[in-house]
């Protein structure tokens, strides 16, 4: 499959490209709406938007099969939408309502779906890394051929438990893809100020885990790398590391003063590397879609998002009895 790596124009159908466009746009518009509802005071607490990083999760979901698992940090809205969880349930969880995926008891950072094999939504930086390896441990134990995508940030990559996990994942050949979403900042700390060597994907070398860097603004590059990683894991060769270089346009959370980077830096990324614009260009120049087709998609997405916002506003707050449920199974 070496040819595939170097192929400039990957073999991708118009339908697939359109689907990626749609999936990324849904995340983008959903997050913009969440930001708006936050501004209105309808969403409280911490709210971490995924805007700019859409290609990472959409590309990797394209490499996943039914039954594969995923787990991530608090920056989780995009992952949930990409794996097919309902926008309504996600948005209503953000507003802390009964119709939310966790009945309003989890919030932005803590959502789950057994049905879609989404295991959270974790607020402790790095905690999802051993948890994800544990999901893979369960799959290996059951010998069911499933793979777990374990997402974490460039900041999380400095947690000790990540390396404890790399070690065990390697000794036990766990089928887990470690996806480092390197958006270049951990809150206000640029990667260069927190990380001794710039290429985080090489950190698996010491454990014998192969890794590669991926252009995270290009959904096709992500999908391609994802397929390699998944094939490696599924064939029983153990874990694989993808360091996906991406960028978040918005602040770390809603209350980020953004003093650690320039407006020009953000603007440059947006105008030159935007993952959605890239696919849009491919669709138009490849004559896979017309402006009208894309407008129709935009409209459709806007409707889904607006509906989710309405649902999230109208869904009642959870009943007070909910305070006392789900503490013990």
């Amino acid at each position, binding site marked *: 499959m070496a040819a595939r790596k170097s192929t400039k124009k990957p073999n991708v159908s118009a339908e697939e490209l359109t689907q990626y466009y749609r999936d990324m746009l849904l995340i983008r518009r959903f997050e*913009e*709406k969440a*930001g*708006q509802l*936050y*501004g*209105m*005071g*309808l969403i409280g*607490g*911490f709210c971490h938007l995924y*805007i700019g990083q859409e290609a990472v999760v959409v590309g990797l979901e394209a490499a996943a099969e039914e039954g594969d698992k995923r*787990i991530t940090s608090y920056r989780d809205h995009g992952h949930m939408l990409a794996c097919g969880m309902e926008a309504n349930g996600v948005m209503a969880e953000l507003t*802390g309502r009964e119709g*939310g*995926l*966790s*009945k309003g*008891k*989890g919030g932005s950072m*803590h*959502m*789950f779906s057994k049905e879609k094999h989404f*295991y*959270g939504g*974790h*607020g*402790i930086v790095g*905690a999802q890394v*051993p*948890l*994800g*390896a*544990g*999901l893979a*441990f*369960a799959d290996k*134990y*059951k010998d069911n051929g499933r793979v777990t995508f374990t997402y974490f940030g460039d900041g999380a990559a400095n947690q000790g438990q990540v390396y*404890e*996990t790399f*070690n*065990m994942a390697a*000794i036990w050949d766990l089928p887990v893809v470690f996806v480092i979403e390197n958006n270049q900042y951990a809150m206000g700390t640029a990667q260069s100020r927190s990380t001794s060597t710039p290429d985080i994907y090489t950190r698996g070398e010491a454990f014998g885990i192969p890794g590669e860097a991926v252009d995270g603004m290009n959904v096709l590059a992500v999908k391609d790398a994802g397929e390699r990683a998944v094939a490696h894991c599924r064939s029983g060769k153990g874990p694989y590391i993808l360091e996906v270089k991406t960028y978040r*346009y*918005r*602040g770390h959370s*809603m*209350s980020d*003063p*953004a003093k650690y980077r320039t*407006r020009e830096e953000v603007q440059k990324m*947006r105008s030159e590397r935007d993952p959605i614009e890239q696919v849009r260009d491919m669709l138009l120049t490849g004559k896979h879609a017309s402006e009208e087709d894309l407008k129709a998609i935009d409209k459709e997405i806007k409707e889904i998002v607006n509906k989710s916002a309405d649902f999230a*506003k109208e869904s009642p*707050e959870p009943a*007070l009895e909910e305070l006392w449920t*789900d*503490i*013990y*199974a």
Partner: protein
Amino acid sequence: MATEILMPALSPTMEEGTLAKWLVKEGDTVSSGDILAEIETDKATMEFEAVDEGIIGKILIAEGREGVAVNTAIAVLVEEGESLDAAPTAAPAAGEAATPVEAPAAPAPVAAAAAAPAAPEVDSSPDWPAGTELVKTTVREALRDAMAEEMRGDEDVFLMGEEVAEYQGAYKISQGLLDEFGSKRIIDTPITEHGFAGIATGAAFGGLKPIVEFMTFNFAMQAIDHIINSAAKTLYMSGGQMGAPMVFRGPNGAAARVGAQHSQDYAAWYMQIPGLKVAMPYSASDAKGLLKSAIRDPNPVIFLENEILYGQSFDVPKMDDFTVPFGKAKIWREGSDATIVSFGIGMKYALEAADKLAEEGISAEVIDLRTLRPMDLPTVIKSVMKTNRLVTVEEGWPQGSVGGYIASEVMQQAFDYLDAPVITCTGKDVPMPYAANLERHALITTDEVVAAVKQVTYR
């Protein structure tokens, strides 16, 4: 259609802010993501971005204005062709703002106990049927048998920890298990508590039923984030969708002469956490019956053992499937003058004290809580209603102790039955010393329990 742009809340606590600077002017075309204004919050100056495309119509709040409340309209966004000062037609968006339904008042706290509460209902049925054959068994063997029996019955149960497999257990609890179940289910881990506690918790999310052995609970402090934040809270945070059916077990508390870092009782720590269950057995039958229940329990269970008790023998019933339920205390000895409540190795002091007191004509009732969460307070209250005096015994430190919690509950639920202040016998408020004489002093002693009972009975 024109829409109002509202003063945003830019932090979890922001109620108002200063509109420091407009970066657009009336008539400008904006698209989503463009920065409209700089707003000073209680914490910082932040950029405020457009979420919709359109043309800036009227600017309603001039730059420099302080104290602009969240959700105040600050500008109007119009569509192409609309008049720049078009008034929004919809109801003012401020009306949409967060006015969460006023929550009805929280349910009133359980009313303070009436002056003379009825004796609580308690389940005092025996742990096994009369006439069952009893076999002298050490706590060590009982724990091993419990794991082996549960593993035979359920393929999803596995044991993971340092030295549990080839070494046969640092304290030989897992002796023979590798031979019977193989290395798929009896798994030696590297020395990496934080990591393997997380992996085991993930495996539990994924449908397995892990038993995690900590070589001792002192080392579980490195793993406590996963025990509490990942294992105990996920069921709640997921609205009941997924939890962690698993057991964290190992020796807890002081062994002998191993110094401060290896001698701590964590009972009171874990007892505090909603979402965890906590067992701390004393006898071999409880060790076996409770561990079997713990492995079957769909919740994360903290199972606190004791190295000194491992080698002690007790009667264990010979039954096909012997279990002990959580939340059911055991009365080891009935008495009428004072109640002694303890658990785990504290029971050794409690029972020895009761023997000594009997020689002096003082009749102590001795209760073993067996599990701390859920805790069988009704059995304690009922006993206090009879004896009117209470002494608690534990090895852990005094501040924030198990006994302190029991004392407060008894005071609230049975104040009028107390004829003396409750005495909480605990370990001394010091890190564990190494020197033999100092260590003896730091631990709770039988004589201290005897003295406490005499004090509450005014003898």
